[in-house]
């Protein structure tokens, strides 16, 4: 600048005499504040109604506060016991005090918790609590009169599992392990082992569904991406219509298709492929879950692959063939590597959604199509073992968050497109 102002040595000033740098910073800060103010209400809304509730639920998976609040004296007396000799009078007295002072509903809740440590606690406490008002020292005899199981050391020793306010017992249960009375980790009893099977089945179903979706989606996406826009848009309706239709409607539709007297079986029988008594059972079992979940999640695979394929110029394939590649080789070496981002996005998306599925397996899965999500619901609503439900939910959530993180790293969430 040849006609520099007189203040060339000092900092550059704006019209109102503030240094330019400072002025820019102020405007930048203002812009930042405005952005923050815009984001703040939705963010707080989300934190209060989504993040905190979920976080809260997850703490239930390690929470053993209730039992320690209800039976403080008992646990204190338990600490003085050598765990070999007969339970002492002091322990019975402590237990008596706790039962006498505690609230009825709290005792009920605590006994449910204790039942997980040693089945039998609940009935034991129920019978004893009934007579608690008439008890007089020595408490040992009074307790034994109420129920002679009080001499059984197993009950007393099982207190050791619950004496800490933080427990990992629910996590152990969720993977078919358990604590013994000295808090060593042991295998769960054979007849109570169900969860590992369910975890495996959930992962198996998710992988099968993901692969099935990929195999079905890839050719169709290619067709949609290479057809003229007008026809492709028309076919796209076939992909988007199920996407937009109510989940329950789709499940009902599949029931009609797959049941014993359903459309598929009727057609196969009419075509002479099957005899009338050999109708396939495709509903209320593992197959049902797989078929229905594949159809429901297929659009999640087609859309990302399609949108990646749209961006690949057709001239690349032609160039490869010009250079002497056969169409197959050109497709495998030139086209397919470019579609990998779409494949990755689709697979992660389908896998994440599949692994937490609940409604579909519940309605069409029957007995051997149930997944871990159904177990979470079962423990939430029926068995009321909320600690175990929370532990399974936490494990599930962690698996999903890992994949979500990978998805964000590879594809970026801001690239998520809808419809």
């Amino acid at each position, binding site marked *: 600048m040849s006609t520099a102002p007189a203040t060339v040595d000092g900092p550059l000033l704006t019209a109102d005499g503030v240094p330019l740098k400072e002025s820019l910073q102020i405007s930048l800060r203002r812009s930042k504040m405005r952005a923050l103010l815009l984001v703040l209400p939705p963010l707080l809304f989300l934190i209060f109604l989504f993040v905190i509730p979920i976080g809260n639920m997850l703490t239930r998976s390690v929470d053993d506060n209730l039992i320690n609040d209800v039976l403080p004296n008992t646990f204190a007396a338990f600490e003085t016991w050598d765990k070999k000799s007969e339970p002492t009078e002091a322990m019975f007295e402590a237990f008596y005090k706790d039962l006498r002072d505690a609230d009825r509903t709290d005792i009920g809740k605590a006994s449910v918790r204790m039942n997980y440590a040693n089945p039998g606690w609940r009935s034991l406490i129920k019978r004893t609590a009934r007579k608690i008002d008439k008890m007089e020292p020595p408490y040992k005899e009074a307790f034994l009169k109420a129920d002679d199981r009080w001499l059984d050391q197993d009950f007393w020793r099982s207190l050791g599992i619950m004496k800490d306010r933080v427990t990992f017992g629910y996590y152990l249960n969720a993977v078919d392990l358990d604590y013994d009375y000295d808090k060593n980790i042991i295998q769960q009893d054979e007849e109570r082992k169900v969860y590992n099977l369910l975890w495996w089945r959930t992962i198996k179903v998710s992988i099968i569904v993901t692969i099935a979706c990929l195999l079905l989606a890839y050719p169709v996406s290619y067709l949609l991406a290479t057809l003229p826009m007008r026809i492709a848009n028309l076919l796209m309706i076939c992909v988007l219509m199920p996407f937009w239709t109510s989940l329950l409607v789709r499940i009902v539709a599949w029931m*009609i*298709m797959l049941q014993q007297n359903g459309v598929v079986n009727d057609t196969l029988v009419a075509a002479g492929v099957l005899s009338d008594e050999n109708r396939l059972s495709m509903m209320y079992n593992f197959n049902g879950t797989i078929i229905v979940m594949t159809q429901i999640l297929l659009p999640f695979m087609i859309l990302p692959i399609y949108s990646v394929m749209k961006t690949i110029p057709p001239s690349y394939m032609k160039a490869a063939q010009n250079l002497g590649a056969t169409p197959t080789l050109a497709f495998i070496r030139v086209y397919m590597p470019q579609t990998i981002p779409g494949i990755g996005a689709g697979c992660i998306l389908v896998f994440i959604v599949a692994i937490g599925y609940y409604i579909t397996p519940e309605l069409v899965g029957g007995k051997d199509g149930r997944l871990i999500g159904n177990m*979470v619901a079962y423990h939430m609503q029926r068995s009321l073992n909320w600690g175990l439900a929370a532990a399974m939910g936490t494990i599930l959530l962690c698996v999903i968050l890992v994949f979500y993180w990978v998805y964000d790293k590879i594809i970026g969430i801001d690239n998520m497109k809808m419809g």
Partner: protein
Amino acid sequence: MALPIYATTGQRIWHYTYLAFCVFVLFFLVAPLVAVIPLSFTSSPFLNFTPEMLALDPDAFSVRWYKALFGICDAVDDSASTMCHNKWMTGAGRSLYYAVCSTLLATFLGTLAALGLSNQHMPAKRAIMALMISPLIVPLIITAAGMAFFFARVNLSNTDAGIILAYTILGMPFVVITVTSTLVGFDRSLMRAGANLGGTPTYNFFKIQMPLIAPGMISGALFAFITAFDEIVIILFIGGPDQHTLPRQMWSGIRQEISPTILSAATILVLFSVLLLTTLELLRRRSERIRGITPH
């Protein structure tokens, strides 16, 4: 995708096998939904195609299940009278109420978030974006369980307000995503030009930015609406008997008294989804046109 004239027989076979496979997949996607429609006009109380229906006997078809759906009771038709209650219509009304309220709230909050997140000076943009979208990723069963405990503690379970708030959470990510993607093509100098011409930021927003991001807002709102309208997991966990929505009615219909009424409801919902899809497609085209992106 046309086959060149010089294609060999092998290529031809391969090409037609490929086309057949694609047709099969598209058929797999749509066939169940299409099969529902004729079956909803059955006159029998069973959920399968009777031989009479296949023979196109007019007596095999009726609209009795639609009557049952809309709560119109035939005194003559005994078997329908047991089904004849108005739960479907009241359920649809409830669902509509929750969906409209939560959509309005979600669109407002989601647009705010998208506007803030599109600002280039926004700190911790990526993390906040990931958080805002997380309700889509976290399995519904976990969200529902968390909300069930929390809402019970703050006296929101079994209330309309609780359900509307929960559905707002589910709908918000859609609005954030769609509005953010319309803002990608937004030319910020338009806002500066507006400010130069003397418009206040609020005035400029409503006059310049809002009309341009409106397609994104509407399509996000449609996603939020359909999600709320169709939601079943959360309602099972936090809804009481007074919050009997349409999906809940379908749920109990599937689990307990399965009758073709559910098919007539399904048919209407399929047509409804086609309508929504068309709206969305028209919106997308409009958005591309006003943002100056030529369709490819």
